[in-house]
C-alpha cells in the first residue's frame, strides 16, 4: 500500500523519466534540442485543454466535447477571417466566446436537467462536429492574415509562443485551484456534492463555471492550433479529448472526482507528448499507436480505481 501511495505521488515523474531514457536509447533523433522543442510545441494544445478537463474531472464529471469544440473554433475563426473578412483578434474573441458558451450550456444541462455528463458532452461532441462540417462543407479554409500565424508559429526569445501560452494557462489553473475560493469549491463539490450544498455552496454555479472554463480552454487550444496549422480543418480536433483525458488521468486527477493537482497534470501531458513523439520517431504504425494510447488510458484509470478500492477497504 505504501508502495502504491508512493507511486501515486512520484511515480508519474518516474514513468516520464523512464520513457525519456527508453526513447533516447532507441532513437538518436529523440534527445536533440530541435526535437524537444517540437515535443513542447506539440503538447501545448494538449496542455491548455488539459487544465479545463482537470477541473471537470475534479468535479466528478467529464467533458468529451473538447475535441469538437477545438474543431468548431477552428472552422468558425477561419470562416470569420477568410469569408467574412473579420479582424483576426475579433475573430478569435468571437470564437472563444462561442466555446465558453458551449461549455456553459453543457454545464447548465448537467446541473439543471441532471443528465450524466458523459451523455451530455457526447451529444455535444457529435452535434458540434456536425455543425463544423455544415459550415465548411468538409473543405479546409485557409489564407489568414500573416499576423494571425504568430500565435502558433512565433517565438519569444527561444521559446515558442504556444508553449508560453500553455505555461500561462497552467499557472492560471494552479492559481485557481490553490488560491481562490471557487477552486476550493471544485474539490468540495467533487468530493461530496450534497455536503457541499448543505455547506452553503451554490453547486449549480460551480458546475456552470467549470464547464464554461473547460469550453474556454478548449477554445484557446483551438485558436493556437489554427494559427499553427494555418488552415481551418473539419478534422482538427478529432479524437483530441481522448489524449486530454489520458493526460489528466495519468496526472493523477481521479475519475471519481475530488482529488488532483495541476503540477502532476503537467507531467501527464509531458508523458503523452513524449510517447506520441517517440512512437513516431520509432516508425511505429499509426494503428499500433492507437492500441498503445488505449492501453495507457486503461492502465491509468485502472490504477486510479485500484487506489480508490484500497482506500475504501482500509
Amino acid at each position, binding site marked *: 500500500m505504501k508502495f502504491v501511495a508512493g507511486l501515486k505521488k512520484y511515480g508519474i515523474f518516474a514513468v516520464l523519466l523512464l520513457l525519456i531514457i527508453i526513447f533516447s536509447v532507441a532513437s538518436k533523433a529523440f534527445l536533440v534540442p530541435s526535437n524537444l522543442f517540437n515535443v513542447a510545441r506539440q503538447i501545448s494544445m494538449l496542455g491548455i485543454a488539459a487544465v479545463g478537463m482537470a477541473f471537470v474531472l475534479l468535479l466528478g464529471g467529464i467533458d468529451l466535447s473538447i475535441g469538437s469544440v477545438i474543431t468548431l473554433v477552428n472552422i468558425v475563426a477561419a470562416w470569420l477571417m477568410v469569408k467574412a473578412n473579420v479582424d483576426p483578434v475579433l475573430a478569435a474573441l468571437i470564437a472563444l466566446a462561442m466555446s465558453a458558451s458551449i461549455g456553459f450550456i453543457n454545464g447548465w444541462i448537467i446541473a439543471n436537467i441532471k443528465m450524466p455528463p458523459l451523455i451530455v458532452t457526447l451529444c455535444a461532441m457529435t452535434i458540434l462536429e456536425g455543425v463544423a462540417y455544415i459550415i465548411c462543407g468538409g473543405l479546409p479554409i485557409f489564407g489568414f492574415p500573416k499576423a494571425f500565424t504568430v500565435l502558433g508559429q512565433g517565438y519569444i526569445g527561444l521559446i515558442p509562443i504556444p508553449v508560453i501560452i500553455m505555461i500561462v494557462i497552467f499557472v492560471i489553473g494552479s492559481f485557481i485551484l490553490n*488560491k*481562490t*475560493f*471557487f477552486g476550493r469549491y471544485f474539490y468540495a463539490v467533487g468530493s*461530496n456534492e450534497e*455536503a457541499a450544498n448543505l455547506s*452553503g455552496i451554490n453547486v449549480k454555479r460551480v458546475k456552470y463555471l467549470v464547464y464554461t472554463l473547460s469550453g474556454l480552454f478548449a477554445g484557446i487550444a483551438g485558436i493556437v492550433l489554427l494559427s499553427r496549422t494555418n488552415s481551418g480543418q473539419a478534422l482538427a480536433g478529432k479524437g483530441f479529448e481522448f489524449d486530454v483525458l489520458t493526460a489528466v488521468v495519468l496526472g493523477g486527477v481521479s475519475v471519481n472526482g475530488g482529488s488532483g493537482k495541476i503540477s502532476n497534470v503537467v507531467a501527464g501531458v509531458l508523458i503523452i507528448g513524449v510517447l506520441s513523439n517517440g512512437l513516431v520517431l520509432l516508425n511505429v504504425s499509426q494503428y499500433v499507436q492507437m492500441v498503445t494510447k488505449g492501453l495507457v488510458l486503461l492502465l491509468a484509470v485502472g490504477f486510479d480505481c485500484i487506489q480508490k478500492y484500497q482506500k475504501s477497504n482500509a
Partner: protein
Amino acid sequence: MVADNMVLQLKNIIKTYPGVVALNDVTIEVAKGEVHALVGENGAGKSTLIKTCTGAVVPDSGQVIVNGREVSSMTPKLSKENGIAVIYQEFNLVGELSVAENIFLGRAIRKGVIIDRKAMVEASKEIFEQLDIDIEPNELVKNLSVGYQQIVEIAKAVSQKAQILIMDEPSAPLTKSEVERMFAMVDKLKSAGVTIIYISHRLDEIFRLADRITIMRDGEKIKTLNTAETDVNMLVSLMVGRELKETYPARMPCIKDEVLLEVNNLYGNGLTDVSFQIRRGEILGFAGLIGAGRTELAELIFGVKPKTRGQIIFKGREISPKTPREAINHGIVLVPEDRKRQGALLSIDIKGNISMAILEKISFCSVINKNKEREIADKYCKELKIKTPDIMQIVKNLSGGNQQKVILGKWLASNPDLIILDEPTRGIDVGAKYEIYKLINLLVESGKTVIMISSEMEEIMGMSDRIIVLSEGRITGIIARQEFNQELIMSYASIVKGKE
C-alpha cells in the same frame, strides 16, 4: 457455566495494526443458547473481534474454538460452515430480487437446471412461520421497510442453519415498533437454541435482551458480567473507565425574552400546519418516531426544500430561504443527521472544512486569505477541543465525535444565531457525547439558540428546555421541562391522525 457448554471460545486473541493494538490478549467465552452482549466505546475493538470470528481478520496469535474444536485459520467460508452468521448494519440484499430469492441467494433450490421458485417460497414461508413473522416471500426486497429487510437477513441466516448469530447494531436503523419485533425474534431464536452475540450502543436494549455482557475498552476485555448483577451506571463506568457523575452537564439559565424564530402554519415537505416559537438562548428539542417529519422541518427552515404555505419569521422579519446559502446568510445553520454523507467533506482537511462556509468572506478578489483561514481553523480546533495533530489532517481520519466537532466549527465560524442539530450524537461514543453536550451548553450560554432533533429519549430529555413532539408531519405535543417524562413523549409521538 461449564466449559463444555461453550459454543464459541476466543482465547488470548492478539491483533495489531501498524501503530495500534486493536485486540490485546482478549479471551471471551460464549455459552450455547445465550444472548451475549458486547459493549464498548467506538474503537474498543468490538468489530475487530467479530471479524476474527468470521475470518475477515486473521489474528496475530490466539485461538478461535467453535464447539470445542479449534479452527486454526478461520476464513469466511469456514466460518459459515461452522454455523456463524453476521447481520451487519448494511444488508447484503439484492433489492430487485424477491424475499425468497434473497434468502436462497447463491443456494437456489433447483429442479435440474431450473430454479424451483415454488419450493423456495414454501421454504421461506416455513422460516417466517417459525419466527412468527408475516412477510410475503414473493415481494421484492426493495419494497420492504428497513425493518423487514433486516428480518430477511435474519431469515437468510436461519435458513443456513446458523448456530451463532452475530448482530452488529441491529436496532440502529429501526423504528421503535420494529425494534420490539426484532427483540421478539431474538427471543424466538434463543429459545430455538441459537446463540446470539449482540452489539449495541443502546444500553437499555442490552439489559432487555442479554444474559451476559462483555465490556471492552481500548482493545482489551474489561469484564464479563451476568446482566442481573449489573446496572447502567456500572456498565458505563466500565466502558469509559471512569464514573460519570451526571450524564448531562448543567448549564446556566440563558433564555432571553426575544423570540428568535416563529413558525406559523407551515406546510410542505410532508409537514402539516406546523407552528411554534423559540426564544433566544433556548434549546428546543424535537422528538418523534423516525419519519415523523423532524428532519423535514429542519430542511424547510434551512432552505433545502421549499415550503408550500405558511410563515417563517426570523429575528422579527419574514424569511423564505430557497437555498442553504440564504439560510446561512440569515444566521441559520444545520448539522445534518448523516455526518459522513451530508455533513463533513471527508477527503478535505480540517482547515478546509471549517472555512468552507465563510470562504467567500475571507477572500479578497476571489483569493483566499490563507493566514486568516488558518487562524480561524486553529481557533475552533482549540475551542472545540478537536483531537488532531494539526489542522491539515484529512477529516476522514478523525473519529466520529471529532468529525462532528469539525462540522460544528464550520458553522460557528459563520457566527449563526440558530443552530439546528439533527441527531448530533448518533454513532458517537459515550465520552465524546458528553463533550458534545457541553459544547451545546456553551453555545446557548454564549447567546446562540439551538434546535435539537434526537431519537434518543434520554438525550432529548436531558438537554432540552422544551420538547416538541411530531407525528406524521404534525405537532402533537409541546412539553415544558418540568413535565418531561418518557411515557408522555411516547404517547404524543404515537398519535396518528391519518393523512389529509
